[in-house]
């Protein structure tokens, strides 16, 4: 883990299997995040969708499921448009804790991906300018 790794822990009042289903089930992912194209499966690619204003789907987050150890550990790559193809890694760890679940997240590789995002930003100046500016404005709030 480096100084640019994000790590978070929360306690959830539910069993690990229940929490696990919200990390891997395509519809349940949509309840707190974005719906997936299919349930997450080991070594398979995944795509999480958002909706454009006209109702069409756009891919929001995508990557590959690297490791799946139900119900204790899930590792995926995590790619977003501005990262210009650079992969970051998201790891979920689920532990039994006082009748509920201690859920820990680490997100690694953001600094490296951010270096690539600047170039992406420049090449996108012409096309999706307003879109990017809007996203940037949102993200610096």
């Amino acid at each position, binding site marked *: 883990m480096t100084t640019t790794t994000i790590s978070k822990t929360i306690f959830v009042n539910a069993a690990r299997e*229940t929490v696990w289903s919200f990390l891997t089930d395509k519809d349940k992912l949509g309840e707190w995040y974005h719906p997936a194209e299919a349930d997450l499966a080991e070594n398979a690619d995944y795509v999480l969708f958002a909706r454009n204003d006209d109702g069409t789907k756009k891919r929001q987050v995508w990557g590959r499921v690297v490791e799946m150890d139900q119900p204790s550990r899930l590792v995926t790559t995590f790619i977003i448009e501005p990262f210009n193809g650079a992969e970051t890694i998201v790891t979920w760890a689920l532990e039994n804790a006082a009748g509920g679940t201690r859920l820990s997240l680490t997100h690694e590789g953001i600094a490296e991906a951010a270096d690539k995002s*600047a170039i992406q930003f420049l090449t996108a100046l012409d096309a999706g300018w307003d879109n990017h500016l809007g996203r940037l404005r949102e993200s610096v709030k």
Partner: protein
Amino acid sequence: MNASAQSHAAQGAFRALADPTRRDIVMFLSEQDMTIGEVVDRFDITRAAIKKHLIVLEDGGLISVHPIGRERVNRLEPLGFKSVNGWLNHFNHFWDDRMSKLATAVEKENLKKQHEKKK
């Protein structure tokens, strides 16, 4: 950089990019560093106007100016568009928000299950 300074820096960047001429200047500088004269040659506007645009871009942290000999060369500062710190902050808040929503969603379903068991 603290959140307020960062937000201030971002506002400077937005202001700098709000103008189409300045966006064109950024495009040119993304290909190579240029002196004011070289930038002026690519536009149909006065040197004074270009100079003003360059100052706004510099204030926004999107370009830097380097004296080389008697010339002053304008160089793009790509990280000014979004700093590494900006992305880390973004995901820091993003995951706080998402994990809180996740806990709410899980516990809601858990309550539902418990009610069904009681029936």
